């Protein structure tokens, strides 16, 4: 346990031993541990992605054998979803910012927080061991009966890894819900909370309530594969479609677990760089809850052609259309926030605008797939692949990078080189569109997904997509370099470089281990940028006086 470090030193430098990092209970350090871990997983998933795109440049399977290709796309799916996207914003930015934003010293259960990180590490080691030892080729969906009876690859170690990592996600969600409810600073009512907290709360609701179902589903597959417990085996009256119901009951809320935190970061950035209170604060807040609740009743649209009854397909289609409304409300409100604002285009704002554009396209193509009539043609084709990459990579990764750049001065106390950062943001936007827009056209042409060898007419678009993928990979390499560079050579960041509103900007950057010397009393509304116009950009010493009533100046 870190002894109560000298409260004046920042959390980064208060103690320097390895054990002080690996046994830390400080939510900020655990956030950093998560940041490093998921960056490694993003790299592994990214390498798998580039191998896939290289293989698909030619219709003939010359770069990878079909067996290796199947293992590669499974690795890409599992790594990106379970080990990067789900923990990314909740565990990195959430861990770091939730206590700071609500004026608490730490999360409700610090020990549980560290335990969650170790669960992720143990889970990941299972899956990485499975990949190195032979790989798993069932796809990230683990559909029965292939995963339980016919696949002879290491399905179970990978599934056990996901089972354990699932508990890390559950316990993180549990920690956030209790913290947000019980540990807000006095005066910080729900409608004075930053919208990031609303989104994290909605995500935690889904993490807590949906993940256990996939845990029990993986257990069932484990029992069927090893214990002869034939629950999904049709020869014994079992029903493979039941597995899909149980799996998608978790996996659709899981895609909302992945996108909701991104929807929490974006209003923060847009409000700050438009110097304006978000338009329709209540609507954005409650639409996060609406997405969380609606997100659990729509999973059937993954199974329109999977042997589901026509009646159920119509019911799920209607519900899926309703879940599109809150997302639409959010996008409209963000755009309206920029009305009559003082808009500046630092890097986080570029990522936020990129998010709005790409997430809008991703969301709208979701309407195509939500209709059973069209989904019959488009299911399991590259249209679906393009749709969820637009939402996950165009939406979530852009929001994650936007959030990292927005709070980087607060996390590390250093400023990153803004020129390079804006260039890489634009490069990522262009490379992304080049990679995934052709896949929409490929999808409607009828190219099935997870194909190692495809037909001649599809090659032109595939080559375009592979070319875009290399630009995208280059785009992702830039932030890695200049952010690491900024750790040493970046300008020292002031407490509030962007003049942003929120309790996390009232503490020095990087904050001290105990966050606040005394818990602040909040008297002003959230985001009241109007009252304090921000004159010069980035003048470290000309930081506006904090209008949050603090018993005494914090540093």
């Amino acid at each position, binding site marked *: 346990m870190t002894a109560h470090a000298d409260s004046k030193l920042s959390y980064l430098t208060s103690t320097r031993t390895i054990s002080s990092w690996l046994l830390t209970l400080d939510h900020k350090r655990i956030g950093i541990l998560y940041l490093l871990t998921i960056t490694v997983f993003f790299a592994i998933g990214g390498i798998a992605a580039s191998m896939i795109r290289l293989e698909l440049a030619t219709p003939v399977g010359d770069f990878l054998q079909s067996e290796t290709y199947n293992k590669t796309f499974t690795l890409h799916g599992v790594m990106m979803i379970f080990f990067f996207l789900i923990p990314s914003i909740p565990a990195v930015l959430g861990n770091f910012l939730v*206590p700071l934003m609500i004026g608490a010293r730490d999360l409700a*259960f610090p*020990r549980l927080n560290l335990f969650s990180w170790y669960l992720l590490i143990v889970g990941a080691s299972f899956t990485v061991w499975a990949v190195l030892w032979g790989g798993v080729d069932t796809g990230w969906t683990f559909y029965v009966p292939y995963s339980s009876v016919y696949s002879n690859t290491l399905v179970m170690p990978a599934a056990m890894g996901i089972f354990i990592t699932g508990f890390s996600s559950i316990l993180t969600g*549990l920690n956030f*819900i209790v913290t947000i409810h019980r*540990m807000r600073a006095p005066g910080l009512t729900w409608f004075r909370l930053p919208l990031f907290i609303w989104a994290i709360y909605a995500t935690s609701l889904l993490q807590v309530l949906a993940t*256990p179902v996939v845990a*029990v589903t993986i257990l069932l597959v484990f029992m069927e594969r090893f214990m002869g*417990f034939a629950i999904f085996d049709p020869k*014994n009256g079992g029903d493979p479609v039941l597995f899909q119901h149980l799996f998608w009951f978790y996996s659709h809320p899981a895609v909302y677990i992945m996108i909701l935190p991104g929807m929490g970061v974006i209003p923060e950035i847009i409000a700050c760089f438009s110097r304006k209170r978000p338009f329709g604060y209540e609507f954005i807040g409650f639409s996060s809850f609406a997405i969380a609740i609606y997100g659990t009743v729509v999973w059937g649209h993954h199974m329109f052609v999977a042997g589901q009854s026509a009646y159920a397909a119509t019911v799920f289609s209607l519900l899926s259309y309703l879940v599109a409304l809150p997302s639409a409300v959010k996008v409209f409100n963000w755009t309206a926030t920029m009305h009559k604002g003082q808009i500046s285009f630092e890097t986080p704002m570029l990522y936020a605008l990129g998010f709005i554009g790409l997430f809008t396209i991703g969301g709208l193509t979701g309407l195509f797939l939500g209709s059973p009539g069209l989904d019959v043609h488009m299911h399991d084709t590259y249209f679906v692949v393009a749709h969820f990459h637009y939402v996950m990579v165009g939406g979530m990764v852009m929001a994650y990078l936007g959030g990292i750049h927005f709070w980087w001065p607060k996390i590390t106390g250093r400023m990153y080189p803004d020129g390079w950062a804006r260039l890489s943001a634009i490069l990522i936007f262009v490379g992304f569109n080049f990679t995934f827009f052709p896949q929409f056209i490929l999808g409607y042409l009828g190219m099935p997904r997870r194909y190692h060898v495809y037909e001649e007419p599809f090659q032109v678009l595939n080559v375009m997509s592979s070319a875009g993928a290399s630009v995208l990979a280059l785009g992702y390499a830039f932030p890695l370099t200049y952010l690491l560079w900024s750790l040493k050579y970046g300008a020292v960041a002031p407490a509030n470089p962007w003049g942003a509103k929120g309790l996390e900007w009232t503490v020095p950057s990087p904050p001290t281990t105990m966050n606040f010397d005394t818990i602040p009393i909040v008297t002003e509304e959230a985001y009241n940028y109007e009252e304090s116009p921000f004159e010069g950009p980035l003048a470290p010493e000309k930081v506006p006086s904090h209008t949050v009533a603090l018993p005494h100046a914090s540093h």
Partner: protein
Amino acid sequence: MSEHESLHGVTHPPGPLAHQFEDIEQQHEAGELGMWLFLATEVLFFGGLFCAYTLYRSQAEEAFELASHHLNLPLGTFNTAILLSSSLTMALAVNAALRSQQKKLVQMLIGTIVFGTAFLVVKYFEWSADYEEHLVPLMGWHFEWEDPTTAPGARMFFNLYFFMTGLHALHMVIGLFFLLLYTWWAHKGHLLGINGQPVHLLGLYWHFVDIVWVFLYPFLYLVGTRAG
């Protein structure tokens, strides 16, 4: 169970106030909400099995009824009585802890342990009886069912029966481990009065495991009627 503060040292439970909380009231409310969230995840964890059960029962109603009649109803009912009594002693233990009655707390905790172990022992006998009758379709053991026509449905019933009761028994074992740990702490004089919160949280967990059995009992033992 790992989320309340008692994990770090076996010798003594946590001090009254953890550093990140402002006052003891805040810490207790946080602990209670945290435990109920954990129980919500357990509800859905068992819920997936209940969903599979309901689905397969609606598909093979008659086979499930025949298979359910093979289970020993009196023993099952006796077992439910034991578990309900263990809930009583647990509730009394929580009551004693909050009123700082150390002797009564230790007695009640030991009572709960006795009842819990009795439940597992009876369960063991039930399972071994089923094993004798070759009704365990797991681990490749030969599954014998005299009527070939209802064999698949019966096999599915016993699959679910052993998985649900096995998972429930696993949760009982985890509960018993913490009960032993708490009895040791209570014996050393901790967990009394204001520090009694962990006993309350363990009580929530134990009552939840009891509720799972309250639903498992009719679902598994009382499919259809045995009067006919």
